[in-house]
C-alpha cells in the first residue's frame, strides 16, 4: 500500500518538524466550516492547547470554561444531548486525568459523542515536569466501554484524526504531544480510524508504535535493514484495536516490539498483549515509560535520559532481538 510519506522523510534534518497540537487545532478550525453543530470548549489553555484557531474563527461556537475541568466535561455532556458535537480541549492530565469519573459517568456510560482533544501527552511535554507529562491517559481511556482512543503519529495525522472523529459515535480521545515532532506523513497519506498502517513490511520482527515513536521505529528499521528485515506498524488507533493487522504481522514475524511515550502499564503495548496473548502468543517487549514519574528537562534531554530517543529505543530493540 502506498502511504505517500514525505520526501526524504527518514532524514531528521530534511523532514519538517511540527507539533501535533497544531495539527489538531488547525484541523478543528477547518472542520468548523462545514460542521455547523460543532462546539469547541476550552479551559483557560486555549492558545497552548491550540483551541484558539477555532475560537477566533467561530467565537459564537466556542465556550470558555475557565480552570474548571469537571465543568468542562459536564457542559460538553449537556451540549451533546442537545445535538451538538462538543470538542473539549486542554492538556491531557487535566482533560482526562482530573475529571475521569465524570467522563466515565456522564460521557461514556450514556454513550455521548464528545471528542476529547489533548495536548501535553507524554514526556514530550518537557520542562513543565511530571505534573504535566501525562503518561497514563491511554490506560484510563481505553478501559472505558465504548471509547475510541487515537494517538496520531504526527501533525498531519492529528489534523485528520480530529476531523474523522466528527462522524464517529460515542466518546473519542485524541492524544497529542506538545513538542515539535517529525512530520513524515503528507496530506495524501490515508487515515482511517481503527485501521493500523503497515508503513514498512518485514519478516524478522514487528515493531508497533503510536505517536512520534512511529518515526523512530521507521528510522531504526532503515538503519538495521542490512542485518534484519523489520515490519513497522503505526497503531494510531489503540481502541478499537486492529487485531487483524496485528495478528497477520505477528504470525509472519513471530515477535513483537512495542514502543510508546506512555507508561508501559496499560498503554498500547498492553492492548496489543491482551489481544495477542489470547490469539497468537509471541515473545514481546514493551518499550516506553517504565512505570515512573520523570522530571523537568528539555524534551531532547528527557528522550535521552529515559531512552525514548532513537539510540535508546534501538538499544532496547537490539537486546530483544538477541533473545
Amino acid at each position, binding site marked *: 500500500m502506498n502511504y505517500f510519506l514525505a520526501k526524504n522523510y527518514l532524514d531528521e534534518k530534511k523532514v519538517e518538524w511540527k507539533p501535533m497540537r497544531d495539527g489538531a487545532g488547525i484541523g478543528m478550525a477547518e472542520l468548523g466550516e462545514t460542521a455547523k453543530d460543532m462546539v469547541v470548549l476550552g479551559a483557560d489553555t486555549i492558545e497552548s492547547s491550540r483551541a484558539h484557531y477555532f475560537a477566533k474563527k467561530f467565537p459564537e461556537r466556542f*465556550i470558555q470554561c475557565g480552570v474548571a475541568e*469537571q*465543568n468542562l466535561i*459536564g457542559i460538553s*455532556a*449537556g*451540549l451533546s444531548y442537545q445535538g451538538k458535537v462538543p470538542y473539549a480541549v486542554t492538556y491531557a492530565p487535566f482533560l482526562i486525568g482530573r475529571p475521569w*469519573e*465524570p467522563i466515565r*459517568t456522564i460521557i461514556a456510560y450514556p454513550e455521548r459523542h464528545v471528542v476529547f482533544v489533548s495536548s501535553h501527552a507524554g514526556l514530550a511535554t518537557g520542562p513543565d515536569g511530571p505534573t504535566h507529562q501525562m503518561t497514563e491517559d491511554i490506560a484510563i481511556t481505553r478501559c472505558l466501554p465504548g471509547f475510541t482512543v487515537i494517538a496520531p503519529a504526527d501533525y498531519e495525522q492529528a489534523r485528520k484524526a480530529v476531523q474523522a472523529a466528527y462522524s464517529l459515535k460515542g466518546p473519542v480521545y485524541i492524544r497529542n504531544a506538545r513538542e515539535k515532532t517529525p512530520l513524515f506523513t503528507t496530506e495524501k497519506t490515508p487515515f482511517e480510524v481503527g485501521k493500523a498502517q503497515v508503513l514498512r513490511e518485514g519478516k524478522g520482527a514487528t515493531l508497533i508504535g503510536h505517536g512520534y515513536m512511529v518515526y523512530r521505529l521507521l528510522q531504526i528499521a532503515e538503519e538495521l535493514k542490512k542485518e534484519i528485515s523489520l515490519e513497522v506498524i503505526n497503531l494510531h488507533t489503540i481502541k478499537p484495536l486492529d487485531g487483524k493487522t496485528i495478528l497477520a504481522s505477528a504470525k509472519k514475524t513471530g515477535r513483537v516490539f512495542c514502543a510508546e511515550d506512555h507508561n508501559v502499564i496499560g498503554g498500547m503495548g498492553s492492548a496489543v498483549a491482551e489481544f495477542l496473548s489470547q490469539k497468537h502468543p509471541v515473545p514481546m517487549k514493551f518499550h516506553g515509560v517504565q512505570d515512573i514519574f520523570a522530571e523537568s528537562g528539555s524534551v531532547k534531554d528527557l528522550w535521552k535520559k529515559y531512552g525514548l530517543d532513537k539510540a535508546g529505543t534501538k538499544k532496547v530493540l537490539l537486546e530483544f532481538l538477541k533473545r
Partner: protein
Amino acid sequence: MKQDYTITELEKKANEIRQDIIKLLVKAGSGHSAGPLGMADVFAAFYFRVLKHDPKRPAWKERDRLILSNGHICPVRYTAMAHAGYFPKSWLATFRKINSKLEGHPSFKKISALETSSGPLGEGLSQACGFAMAAKMDGMQHTYHVWCVTSDAEHQEGMTWEAAMFAGKNRLNNLTVIIDRNNIQIDGYTEDVMPLEPLREKYEAFGWHVIDMNGHDMAEIISTFQEAKAIAEKPVCIIAHTIPGKGVSFMEKDYKWHGVPPGTAIPGEPEKEKQAQIALRELRTLGKKIEAADLD
C-alpha cells in the same frame, strides 16, 4: 397531556406517589427512602402542572428539560413518570432488579426521558448548563426551560460550584436549579458533616436570583416555579425547604432513613416487619387527618 391539575388534585397525586414509593422500595429491598418522600410534592408539581412535556413524545424538541442531579432519589421520579404515563406502573416493581429499565440510579440508555444518567453527586448542574447553553445557541431559550434538581449535600462537591460560576457568568436565565434543602446526608445532618450555610448568599454571590420555598406547600411550589421562569436577567436558584421522609412519622427528619428502604432494622425504629404497613397507613390518612375512605 393534562397539565391543569388543581392544588388539591396535586396534593392527592403527591400522596399517591409517596405510597407507590414505599411499595417500590419494599419490593426492591434496597434504595433511598427519605429524599424521594421529601420531594414527592415537587415532582407531582413538575409532572402534572409545571413541565412542558408529553409522555408519548419524550424526544419532543420543545419539551422542558428536567435534569435530576442527585440520582439516588430516582424512586420519586420513576413513580411520578409512571403516573404521568411514560411507562407502565408495573415497571415500578422491577426497580433495582436484573433486566429492569429502572436502574438503582437513573440510566439514560434505559429510559431516554430521564434526559441524563446520574448517581455520583455534583454532576447534574454542569450538564444542565450545557443544555441551557445549547438552547441559547439554537435561539430556543424562550421555547423551553431547563430545570435541574439537586440535593443540598451535593453542594459539598466542587463541581457544583464550577457550574454555578459558569451559569452566573453566562446569565443562563433559561435555567433553574432546585435544591432539596432537607438538611440530611448519609453520615448525619449537613451542618454537622460539612456546613452549607449561608446557601442563599453563596448563590447570590455567584450571580443567581435566589428564592426560598416551602417544598410541601403546593400553592407555593406552583407560584415559585412560575416566578422562576419569569426572572429574565439571571439563572434562578430555588431553595426548597423539605422534610426528609415526609409523611412517614418515624422517617421524618431522621438521616438514618437516607439510604435504606422500609423493612430495615434500625435501633429505636418500629419493628422492621411493620414499617411498610405503618408508612402506608399514615400516608393513606395523611397522618389521621383524613379518613382513608376519602382518598379512594
